[in-house]
């Protein structure tokens, strides 16, 4: 069947079966396919969602945001979002497989991070798994991005 989804501000027509998840039809990273690792996290109507736990058809009529929307592209290259810059500066990624998911998890946090303690921030970021970094640079980068955006 044909499915129309709004992805990163544009309408996209996709070929999908009813059983296909959002993770199947978007270029996300799948880490566990059962909603634990968060590698496939995208933003649906301003909330982080595990794309592997949502059928593609359930996303109809909703605003989907993926990592591809973060940087502003031009011929001169990509102007990175402060969150992406902070991940680079603080070495918050190694293999990079969890990175799009973490960026999408952290993006909605940036507004309210000022009021969060480190423990609360760690708790919020514990939604996703990273196997490379040991998390501390991810925590640092998210905090730094919020600072930079103030």
């Amino acid at each position, binding site marked *: 069947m044909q499915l129309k989804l709004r992805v990163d501000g544009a309408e996209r027509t996709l070929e999908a*079966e009813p*059983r*296909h998840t959002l993770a199947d039809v978007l*270029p996300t*990273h*799948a*880490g*566990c*396919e*059962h909603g*634990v*690792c968060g*590698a496939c996290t995208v933003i649906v109507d301003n909330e982080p969602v595990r794309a592997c736990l949502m059928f593609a058809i359930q996303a109809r009529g909703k605003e989907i945001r*993926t*990592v*591809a929307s*973060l*940087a502003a592209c031009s011929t001169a290259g*990509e102007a*990175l979002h402060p969150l*992406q810059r902070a*991940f*680079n*500066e603080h*070495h918050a*990624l*190694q*293999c*990079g*497989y*969890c*990175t*799009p998911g973490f*960026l999408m998890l952290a993006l909605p946090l940036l507004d309210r991070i000022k009021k969060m303690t480190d423990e609360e921030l*760690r*708790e919020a*970021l*514990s*939604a*996703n*798994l*990273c*196997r*490379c*970094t*040991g*998390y*501390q*640079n*991810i*925590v640092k980068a998210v905090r730094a991005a919020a600072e930079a955006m103030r």
Partner: protein
Amino acid sequence: MKREFIGRSVPRLEDLPLLTGHGRFARAVSFPGELHMRIVRSPYAHGRLLGIDATRARAAPGCVAVWTSADVAEVPPIEFRPTRVKGLEPYRQHVLAHDLVRYVGEPVAAVFAEDAYRAEDAAERVELHIDPLAPVLDAEASDIEPTLIRKEYGDVEGAFARADTVVELELSIGRHSGVPLETRAAIARHDAARDLLELHCATKRPHANRDVIARMLKRDPASVQLHEGHIGGGFGVRGELYPEDLLACVATLRLGRPVKWIEDRRENLMACNHSREQRHRVRAAIDASGGILAIDDEFFHDQGAYVRTHGARVPDLTAGMLPGPYRVPAYRARGRFRLTNKTPAATYRAPGRYEATFVCERLLDAIAHKVGIDRIEVRRRNLIAKSEMPYKRPMEVLEVETVLDSGDYTGLLDKTLATVGWPALQAELRARRARGEAVGAGIALFVEKSGLGPLDAARTRVDQDGSVEVITGAASLGQGVETVLAQICADALGVDYRNVRVVHGHTDRIARGFGSHASRTTVMTGEATRLAAEKLRAAVLDAAEGLLDLPAEILDIVDGRIVRTDVRAAPLLALGELARGRELSEEAEFRSEHMTYPYGAHVAVVKLDRDTGAVRIERYFVAYDIGCAINPMLVEGQIVGGVAQGIGGALYEEFLYDERGEPLSTTFADYLIPTANEIPPVQVLVTEDAPSPLNGLGVKGAGEAGVNAVGAAIASAIDDALGRPGAVTQLPVTPTRLKELLRK
């Protein structure tokens, strides 16, 4: 050589595509007309495979073919690395099981279909007829021992006969593994026009894998090419050759279409290499003051059902590295390499050493307790002194003689104690324990190994726009290989590291390569890169001398331009201009017969929850001497990430089986990878006190320091919190096991 980039925490070159969603991970590697492969796996741990009925599967919509072992009868079992160890050949794994199944998850059939869902649908229609047999699930109970790893030197019996005291322990380490966040994948295609077989995504040892595939499929090695894209973590398990890689290659050759296979997480947890599970019976002969006279260790290594590509390297590393940083005058290790009906095992980051350090450091704590001296003091009395370096240990590790190349172990211990404020920490913990808290600190020392030979090569060339390309046989698994090699090349040549493009993981770009594993890349490929870049620098200056009619002695390369060093003047020429008239390209190789041995210390502070059995790590510290840190930020990143994996193995991660050999840890809800909540902030001290004499920069490897001693340090800390030296004898210390300890 000027050091403008070496030693600086410059940002990584590899981040941009990863941050913007442009990473080329396996899911993004697709070829027109590709088929999708799904593996049918044994549901029994042990059984006779009586037959497979694929009739209904073949009739499923979109199914193109179903293969059983008869369809791949010509494919030999998968090779392991060349080794002097005899007797392993009969235990290699066939790409599909033929007479017996030996673990749950063993491939028994392969289904090829038009898309991944249809392949899975068809796979569910494959009917297996298996007559179950009793499984063997404990290495000690197994009667299949393909080899016994023996290492021995000195008069062990004599030492035990004259010892003042003997300390004996039984210790075990749980079964856990690398579990990268991206599962395995294999994408194969055959370009019939040029008769080229390509395999994508098997990253780690591309050239070695190319040669094995060529031999197994009876092809010319030049007709096989391996390509790496991005890889979601390696940690030892990713990039070895598995049955699925070979099946994808055979299928694309036979079916005439590209073949894509992506493992799911359940498969990954029961089919990708496991690691670590060992049980040790170790004893030490000691003198009255706690000095070690001899160590005697017998251990059972649970290899699982087959000998995979590493052969018996993991127990070899355990036996060879167990004495750690200590002076052990007489030593004997017997590693019983046993087969069981579990997922086959191989290397996981710090293979054999996570286990060995746990055993060695438990032993040191036990010696201290027995003699009645402090945990620090017992270590001081037994550490190899700086003046004894290089220190030759009369046994081999990985068939290479052991020479600890440099080190100041006591010096690093002192720095560790000073940095963590050990005496004040002890007083604080005593006070808290007096108030009823179950808190304690543990310390563990270790020696790592890195820079495994035999050689590596690199080619550097200047392009006409002045950019520099470094072509290597390395692989990138996320460590920062491109950045580090670019930093080395930049300083050796005289350019900005951002103008250096590093090529890795493509067998068609360089004839030889040894990949990335065993903490070897910065040492081996790094040194080859430095040598090639220095040759290139000489060639550039030579060319400039001819062109400018100035002696090379007064010329230098600064930021990619030729400058005069004798007078202040504007740059004379850019490298790109020079490259337009001539080929500026140089290759070098670096050979090393010995490994280089970095070392370090871990300190853990834990608090036990008596109600839940949880272990809360309050503080974690790692000191590590790396000889020369090319990029300290990346070294720290390696260490902190390794600590997180070590904590997983010490407290949470374990592959469990029921009595029928059914794996119980097949989802991330059962196999617990630590989250940000479980990992404390880790403090790291990187020192450069003992550069390696074995390479020009003095580099040692960074990859495995973080994970190595975590089990040991946490065990020691839990003992301290319990006030019971030697209480922890088994990893992981899960809440259930801690509750048992608390009840005792």
